[in-house]
C-alpha cells in the first residue's frame, strides 16, 4: 500500500513537468509562482547555445528599447560575427605576430565563397553589421582606458572584425565557388579597394595588439606594391602574400 503511494508520487513527478523546472514560467507547473527570465538573460542563453538568430533578434530589440545601453553592443557584434562564420575562439587565439602574413592568418580562420557558396554575401553582411554595431558606440566611450569592461572588448573586437571584414571582402575577388581564383581580382573596383583599405585602417587604429599591428603592416605592404591604383596594389599584395 505504501509503495503504491510512492509510485503514484513518482508518476506525478514525471508527468507534472518532465525534466523542466517546476518554477520556470516557460513550461513549469501551472499556477506556481514562476520565475521569468529577462530578455537579456534569454539572449545570453541563446548565445551560449549557438542560437545566434535568436540572440541577434533579442539584442536588437533590447538596443532599440534602450539605445544608450552600450554594454549590449559588443554582445550583438559578437553574435553577428559568429553568424558570419567567424569562430571567436580561433580568432582570439590566432598568432598574428608570427611569420605568416595577416592575410594568410586571417584567411585560415574565416569562411570563403568556396566554403559558403551563395551564402557568402550574407556572411559578409553579417561581418559588416558586427563592425557597424561596434562603431555605433560613441568613440569617446571606446577608450582603452575606460573603466567600463565592454569598452576594452569593443576595441579588440573592432580590430579583429575589421581585419576579418577586409579579408572577407578581398576573398570575393580571390575565391570562386569552386576554389582559389585570382583572375577575379580584375573585377575589383576603386570602391571595393577603398572598402578593404578603410577596414584595415580601422583595424590598425583601434588597438595596438598583435592583430592591430598586423593590420598596420598589411597597409604598409599594400602601399609598397606596384600599381597605379589601390585596386591594383591590393591585387598585387594579395597574390604576393599567398
Amino acid at each position, binding site marked *: 500500500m*505504501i509503495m503504491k503511494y510512492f509510485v503514484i508520487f513518482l508518476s506525478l*513527478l514525471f508527468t507534472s513537468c518532465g525534466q523542466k523546472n517546476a518554477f*520556470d514560467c516557460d513550461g513549469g507547473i501551472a499556477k506556481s509562482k514562476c520565475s521569468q527570465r529577462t530578455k537579456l538573460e534569454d539572449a545570453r542563453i541563446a548565445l551560449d547555445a549557438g542560437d545566434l538568430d535568436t540572440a541577434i533578434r533579442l539584442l536588437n530589440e533590447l538596443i532599440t528599447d534602450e539605445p544608450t545601453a552600450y554594454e549590449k553592443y559588443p554582445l550583438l557584434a559578437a553574435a553577428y560575427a559568429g553568424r558570419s562564420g567567424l569562430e571567436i575562439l580561433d580568432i582570439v587565439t590566432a598568432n598574428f605576430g608570427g611569420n605568416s602574413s595577416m592575410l594568410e592568418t586571417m584567411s585560415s580562420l574565416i569562411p570563403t565563397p568556396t566554403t559558403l557558396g551563395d551564402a557568402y554575401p550574407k556572411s559578409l553582411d553579417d561581418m559588416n553589421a558586427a563592425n557597424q554595431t561596434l562603431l555605433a558606440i560613441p568613440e569617446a566611450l571606446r577608450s582603452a582606458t575606460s573603466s567600463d569592461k565592454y569598452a576594452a572588448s569593443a576595441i579588440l573586437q573592432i580590430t579583429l572584425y575589421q581585419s576579418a571584414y577586409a579579408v572577407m571582402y578581398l576573398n570575393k575577388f580571390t575565391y570562386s565557388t569552386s576554389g582559389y581564383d585570382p583572375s577575379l581580382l580584375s573585377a575589383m573596383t576603386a570602391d571595393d579597394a577603398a572598402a578593404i583599405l578603410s577596414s584595415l585602417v580601422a583595424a590598425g587604429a583601434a588597438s595596438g595588439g598583435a592583430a592591430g599591428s598586423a593590420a598596420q603592416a598589411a597597409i604598409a605592404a599594400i602601399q609598397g606594391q606596384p600599381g597605379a591604383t589601390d585596386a591594383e596594389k591590393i591585387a598585387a599584395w594579395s597574390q604576393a602574400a599567398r
Partner: protein
Amino acid sequence: MPLCHRFLLALLFVTDVLWAKGSAPIYEDSFDMGSGGASLTRASQAGMIFSNPALIPYGPGFHRWLGNETSLLIGKDSVDFAKSLRSSSGGSGSNTSEFVSKVMTTPLHAGLVNNFAYINSLFGFSTFSRNNFDIAAKKYGDTGLPAVRLRAESYQGVALSAATMALTRAISIGVTAKYLYAGEPDLAIELTDTEALQALQTPSGLRSLVSPNIGYGYDAGLLLFKQGYNSDFRLALKIDDVGGTKLAGDGSLKLLRQTYSGGVGYTLHNGTDALHFSLDYRDIQKAYDEEMFKRVRMGAKFIFRQHLALGAGYYDGWPSYALELDAWLVRLTGAMYTRELGTKPGLDPRTIYALGFTMGL
C-alpha cells in the same frame, strides 16, 4: 599566451574555492538532496545536525549513529565531456584546439563531501567538509569575448548539537553550535584580459581567492510531532545562523545571514515500511533575496524493510532522484539532482550525480 595555457593557468589557482551562500544548509546528505532537499522534518543521520537539530530525539534507543559518510559529486556535463574525450581520443582531430573548444562549451563541476558524526538521543557531534568547484567557460562572455567563470564552495568545520523533548514527545527543540572555515570564491576572467590573469599570480590576488574565512555561529530548530498508528505529522521551524554568523579573514564571504525556515511532513508507515512526504519553505523573509524556486523544496522518501530507500522530489525546482542500499555497516547512495547556479531557472543549471559510501552503525 595561448588560450589553453591561460585556461590551465586559471585552473591552477582554483583549488579551494563556491558560489554565494544561499538558503540551503551548509551541509546536506546526498540522499536528502536527491529526495528534493526538504530535510527540515526528516533528515538522514548526520544531516539532522545541520538540517534541524530538533530531529535528534526522535528514533529508537539512545545510540543513533556513529559513522562516516563520503560522497563524490560530479556534474553530468563533466561525465559527458569525459565520454566525448574518450571517444575522440583515437581520432585524428584530437588536439589542444579541440579540447579547448569542448571546454568552452562544457561546464566542469565536481565535489567531495565528508562527514564523520556521532549522534545519540540527546546530542550530536560532526566534523565535516564540503568542497565543490565549478568551472564554466563561455565562448561569448559578458562582453562578447571568451571568458571563464570559476566558482567554488569550501566549507569545513565542526558542529555540536543538543536537543530535548520539551515536556511531551510532541515537541522537540534543538540547537547546533558550529565552527566554520568557509570560502566562496567567484571569479570571472576574460581570456583576453591579461591584467586579470597577472593579478591572480600575485600573493594578495591568490590570498583573496583561496583563503577561507573563519567564524562560529548557531542554529535553532523546533519540531512539532503528532504520531498516529499508521501516520505521523510533523511541523518544523528553524532559524539558521542566529543573529548572523560573522566570518573573519581575507576571503570575500563575511557573513552568513540569519534565515527563518518552515517545513511540514507527513509519514505513512507500517511495521516495516515508511513513506515520508515533505515540503520546506526556506528563508521565509528572503534574507538572501532568492527566488521561490530556490527556497521551496519538496519530495518523498520511501523506506522499504529498512534496507532500501528511494527518494524523489524537486530540488531547486528541478526533478531529483535518490537510491540508497543499507547493508548493515555499509550504505551505498546514489543521487541525481540539479542545482541552479543562476538566479532564475535555466540560467546556469548543473545536473549532479552523487555517489555516497557510508560506514557506520
